[in-house]
């Protein structure tokens, strides 16, 4: 925590500069949410995580063969949240990788897998934190997967090709995570002048700029992995309802790969 105490002495620069530096907070750092906020987000996340653990154990018990793919989904989150990528705003941030698992196994699983990833980073990397675990889990392991899954389902219902739906699902999971993070920060540290909404607007606009290219990267990587899965794990995808039985994915993508053969 040494940089903090050193910097506090300096006069605050303009609020915009400050916000520009806050914006690419990947996860909220240890001790940086007031205790009341930390507890509240923990309480909000807990039921989702408990429910997630339950559905995870049920899934593994009923379909032991899906353990491998579950592990692979968790591994994807692990890899992507370790990739700090440069972005157009001149800062670095990282994707979340939660969209893939949410699409494959539904969001409750990701509440568990995402929280495990956060826990790893909080304990070993001093990235995120234990006191902010609830808040970070809420954004990355709960809202992100649900938003991504919802958009994926919506697009599929209206006949979007599988890979397009996967791309936008992963994109939404990534971007919504950081929107929630900025809302959480704005709640904890409202703008002295314009209050919560002012802070949210500023956080949000800067966040979006940094994170959009990364969300695109995440979407592309998720499509990449999904394409590999379509090749290698067709049976599993059919069972999970991502592909329709009989080799049809419903729309475009399937016809496409049929043509390749």
């Amino acid at each position, binding site marked *: *925590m040494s940089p903090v105490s050193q910097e506090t002495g300096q006069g605050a*620069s303009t609020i915009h500069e400050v916000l520009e530096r806050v914006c690419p907070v990947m996860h909220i750092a*240890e001790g940086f949410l007031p205790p009341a906020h930390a507890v509240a987000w923990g309480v909000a996340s807990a039921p989702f995580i408990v429910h997630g653990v339950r559905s995870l154990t049920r899934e593994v018990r009923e379909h032991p063969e899906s353990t491998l793919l579950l592990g692979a989904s968790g591994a994807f989150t692990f*890899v992507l949240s370790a990739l700090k*990528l440069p972005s157009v705003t001149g800062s670095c941030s990282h994707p979340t990788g939660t969209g893939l698992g949410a699409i494959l196994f539904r969001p409750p699983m990701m509440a568990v897998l995402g929280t495990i990833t956060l826990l790893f980073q909080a304990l070993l*990397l001093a990235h995120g934190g234990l006191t902010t675990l609830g808040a970070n889990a809420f954004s990355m392991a709960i809202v992100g997967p649900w938003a991504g899954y919802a958009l994926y389902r919506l697009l599929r219902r209206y006949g979007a090709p599988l890979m397009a739906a996967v791309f936008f699902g992963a994109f939404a999971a990534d971007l919504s995570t950081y929107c929630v993070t900025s809302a959480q*920060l704005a709640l904890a540290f409202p703008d002295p002048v314009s209050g919560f909404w002012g802070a949210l607007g500023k956080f949000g606009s800067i966040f979006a700029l940094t994170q959009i290219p990364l969300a695109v990267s995440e979407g592309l990587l998720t499509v990449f*992995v999904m394409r590999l899965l379509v090749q290698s794990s067709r049976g599993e995808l059919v069972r999970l309802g991502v592909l329709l039985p009989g080799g049809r994915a419903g729309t475009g993508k399937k016809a496409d790969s049929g043509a390749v*053969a």
Partner: protein
Amino acid sequence: MKRNTAVNALLLLAVAALAVLPLALGLGDHKEEPFAGADAEAETAITEIEPDYEPWFAPLYEPPSGEVESALFALQAALGTGVLAYYFGLRRGRRQGERRAAEAQPGARPGETGSAAGAAGDLETREA
């Protein structure tokens, strides 16, 4: 190159381009510390918004240096990549095994399509 492989390569290339372009175009030049680790910046920035704010909890363990930290990040990525590689390798091997078993006994049919196309077994004969 097969179309499938080409699309996959293009996807990866696009991701790489998205990561490299901000660096190549010098988009971080206006900053004191371009492309810095953003979380340390964020911590100081929050204390600037609220100078009185004291972080009330410190990480139990903090990597002693940036090098150790990046080693741990690399470890995280390596663990994940290892599991993913294991998964896809296992799948690939299983499919090959099934295909060979199917060729060995022509009576039995594999669940997959295109048994005749798989004559070259190991090659990238990707049936759709």
